[in-house]
């Protein structure tokens, strides 16, 4: 009987041979975590991984804070941009738990950033500075910058979702919570981290010296986050902190955290050399060969007609074709009647003060110069034969005549209007709504095409925050003067007497005007939603194709289904389906 013998043979063979085989993996294009840190550069590369991620993560924030608010719209355009109602639901505040989309990306993006920061902070705690040729101060600065970046992520979560879990460690999860904590706990974490870190951060000590500090959290950058936190404290935790906001904003303006000044033209903070602009307090460094998340579809690249490459002459650009995702909410009905909405109508708000530089048609002037912020009317360009052409719609070949109205105008003559007295997001064509160029779209011949950095915080935000605090405490003249210190650059000196707020000029400032002015200066800068909330308008206000919400639960976003599914300890935000 051979049968058992065979089996024994086979099994013995397996055991003998099995014990002398090695299946450890040899790493080639990755590095084992345990032997990653060898040089100073390794430390720098690891420290700034969360920063690189943070720059990427601005996209979902832009969508959520602008398309839910009153200034920007994504209407359908000749059948495009319906996208299953995704953009419409943001506009109508009808987003639901199954939507996923940008609210899911925002949650995951911020928490990924937070966990990356925790990971780096804990790694750096284990290393010693002199081992890699850092001074102690340099090393402490890197750790502090990661904590400030973590606070920046938490501030976004507090703003978007309010009720979030606490995660302050990667290696020791017992310090974290699986369930959500009170908003106040997150508020205090942000506040304490920022206050603790400010002394450890670098300071921009002279005007014109910002370029090397670009992308780094400085004293002024961290202090600016405190301004953001305090300005909205009433929304976030139900306690007003306008006094705290006022005092820290004043200190920043007084130069206590470094040297900054408002630029003499509105577009300097967005131009190719904005890393040298003294108005910029924090920006994410961008360049065509590296990252440029502000020049993407979800941010500022799709704010222009689909064929505007002919107008900008930028068809060879790395960012690809432009597209029409974002346009300004209309001021006019399709029949040419001016709307009377309390909110929205951003273009009409710009028109209120004549001579605004930003209201000029955007044009490339050559040599890395531009004028104007908006794209409207006919966009004319010279073709190869020198003939004048107009930018057309992508399929149906009609010349675009971009209007401050939404409707199916198509090839309608520029002096004609439609019969319809109202329109909705579903009624658009490629003419509908003024487009814009916040960051320049320089031509392929321009040596500085796409070189702008992404400006996250600029001095006017601090000045406007201070002005709002002053206005809230009844100091209208102080508020007016502060706003004028920024606004005056937008208008010719001859108009100052009429366009500046009293006492510098004749214009009147009140809370409604303050909100409108936030909308002008920070048009499409990813913050309109919270401004509307702070002014009590987000859920109760009326603007184009938007009636008030039934209640206030839409002030924060739901936690999307896949996130709830992945962590059953999370509780859905009030008012949303579990």
């Amino acid at each position, binding site marked *: 009987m051979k049968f058992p013998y065979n089996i024994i043979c086979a099994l013995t063979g397996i055991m003998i041979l099995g014990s002398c085989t090695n299946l450890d993996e040899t790493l080639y294009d*990755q590095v084992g975590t345990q032997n990653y840190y060898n040089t100073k550069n390794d430390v720098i*590369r690891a420290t700034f991984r969360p920063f690189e991620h943070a720059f990427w993560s601005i996209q979902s924030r832009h969508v959520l804070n602008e398309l839910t608010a009153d200034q920007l719209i994504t209407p359908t355009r*000749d059948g495009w941009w319906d996208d299953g109602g995704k953009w419409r639901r943001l506009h109508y505040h009808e987003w639901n738990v199954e939507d996923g989309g940008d609210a899911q990306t925002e949650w995951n993006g911020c928490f990924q950033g937070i966990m*990356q920061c925790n990971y780096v902070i804990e790694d750096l705690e284990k290393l010693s500075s002199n081992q890699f040729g850092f001074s102690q101060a340099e090393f402490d600065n890197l750790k502090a910058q990661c904590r400030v970046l973590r606070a920046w992520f938490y501030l976004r979560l507090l703003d978007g979702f309010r009720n979030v879990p606490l995660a302050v460690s*990667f290696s020791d999860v017992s310090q974290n919570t699986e369930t959500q904590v009170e908003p106040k706990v997150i508020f205090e974490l942000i506040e304490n981290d920022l206050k603790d870190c400010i002394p450890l951060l670098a300071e921009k000590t002279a005007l014109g010296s910002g370029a090397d500090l670009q992308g780094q959290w400085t004293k002024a950058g961290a202090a600016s986050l405190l301004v953001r936190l305090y300005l909205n404290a009433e929304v976030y935790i139900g306690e007003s902190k306008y006094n705290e906001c006022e005092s820290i904003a004043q200190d920043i303006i007084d130069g206590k955290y470094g040297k900054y000044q408002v630029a003499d033209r509105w577009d300097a903070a967005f131009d190719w050399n904005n890393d040298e602009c003294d108005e910029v307090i924090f920006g994410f460094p961008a360049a065509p060969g*590296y990252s440029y998340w502000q020049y993407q579809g979800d941010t500022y690249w799709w704010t222009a007609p689909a064929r505007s490459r002919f107008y900008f002459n930028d068809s060879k650009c790395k960012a690809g074709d432009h597209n029409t995702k974002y346009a300004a909410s209309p001021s006019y009905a399709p029949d040419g009647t001016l709307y009377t909405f309390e909110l929205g109508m951003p273009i009409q708000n710009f028109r209120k003060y004549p001579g605004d530089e930003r209201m000029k048609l955007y044009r490339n002037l050559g040599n890395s110069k531009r004028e104007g912020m908006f794209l409207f009317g006919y966009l004319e360009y010279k073709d190869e034969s020198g003939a004048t052409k107009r930018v057309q719609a992508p399929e149906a070949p009609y010349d675009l005549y971009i209007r401050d109205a939404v409707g199916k105008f198509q090839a309608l003559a520029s002096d004609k209007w439609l019969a319809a007295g109202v329109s909705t997001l579903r009624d658009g064509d490629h003419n509908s709504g003024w487009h814009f160029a916040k960051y320049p779209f320089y031509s392929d011949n321009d040596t500085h095409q796409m070189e702008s950095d992404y400006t996250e915080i600029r001095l006017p935000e601090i000045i406007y925050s201070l002005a709002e605090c002053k206005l809230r405490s009844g100091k209208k003249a102080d508020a007016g003067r502060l706003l004028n210190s920024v606004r005056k650059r937008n208008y010719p000196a001859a108009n100052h007497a009429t366009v500046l707020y009293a006492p510098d000029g004749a214009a009147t400032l009140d809370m409604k005007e303050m909100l409108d002015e936030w909308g002008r200066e920070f048009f499409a800068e990813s913050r309109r939603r919270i401004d509307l909330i702070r002014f009590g308008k987000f859920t109760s206000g009326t603007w184009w194709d938007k009636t008030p919400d039934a209640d206030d639960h839409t002030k924060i976003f739901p936690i999307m289904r896949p996130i709830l599914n*992945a962590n059953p300890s999370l509780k859905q935000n009030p008012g949303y389906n579990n």
Partner: protein
Amino acid sequence: MSSYKNDAKLIAFFGRVSYDYDGRYLFTASLRHEGSSKFGADNKWGNFPAVSAGWRISSESFMKGIKWINDLKLRADYGVTGNQDFGSYLSLNTMTGFGYYSYNGRYFQVWGPSKNVNPDLRWEKGKNFNIGLDFSLFKGRLYGSINYFSRRQQDLLGNYKVSVPPYLFDETFVNVGTMKNTGLEVDLNFKAVNTKDFSYDISFVGTTMRNEFVDFSNSEYVGQDYYDVCGTEDPYPFYNLQRIQKGESLGNFYMWKYAGHTEDGEWLIYDKDGDIIRASQASDEDRRIVGNGMPKFTMSTSHNFRYRNFDLSLFFRGAFGYDIFNIHDFYYGTRNFTGNRLQKAYDKNFVVSSSANPVVCDYFLERGDYLKLDMVTLGYTFRPDDWRFLDRVRVYGTMKNVFTLTSFSGVDPSTYQVNGLTPGGQGSRTYFPSTRQFIVGLQVDF
């Protein structure tokens, strides 16, 4: 530009015993001990046994008298197989390069953890059970087999959604999930006619298939019980056609249920309570299972004729009992699309307003059943006795993709794949037309 370098090692030991008693009782057992470098430190090795047994009934003495049975064998086998078909280094803590960031005015490529590490990564195992009958009857004129199979894939390897925090990424590559396939295979061959001048042979292969995604969770990872898959693209993106769900078959079309159109051409659908609402008011919660894209039955059959020096062969194949989402009708078939439109936009789909975007609902779902004459070959063979250097010359003509019988109104239904994770589902409108080929050939034997 990018580059990569990695390695992986696979080691296997194999042992087998066979036992055969008098040609009547057959038994084989084998064991494969296999190790892969890709798995976690404690899970690199897996054991994959297999046993099979056969009983040649026709060799039994009590069968001796039955002349019309030439061969009859009952067999059964059970085996475990392993899968390690995925990237290297997934069970190790590693750092990898990401994008660029500037520090002190200089750009650096940043480095960070490359993934959520899973040190417990282990072999995905397939447990296969077959029972079958092989037969040869009437002096070999009819032969073939009938086979029942049951395949259970467990510890399926895949990216699984996890919570951030505590993880760094919202997906971890884990062993989670179990899927089951069962079915019946029939293989028949019949020499219908075989005379000097004329012969006719038929063969037929048919398979029934049932699938169930048994579970997405295991003891360590408990999470959601479904994934929406098969997304659409511009200009109508953000829809998913199918849902893979616990306890359900792959290929389920999960979408709104069509309820007609309004007079002004807007889409109507049923909401979750069964009320008719406009699609523009509908939410994801109103979706339901409206069909399935996995054929219940697939078959192929060939027919070979020979008459003197002529030969003719026909090859048919078909799939039955499944649905297809007519993706080209969805994209091109309504007046809403601004590029090339199908004729349908002006007849069947004319009720859809030109301002109404097509919505993903079962309006576009059709039966995919088809029977295709895939190939016809007609040949003539010359066998001249007096040619000195040639034995045989055959001229033939072949036509491929001759015709398709189907009620599907879109493109050739056989261009929709019915394997993989999204059978019958295709979110992209990209289309590679199926071609009809004509081949004329000359075959010369020396």
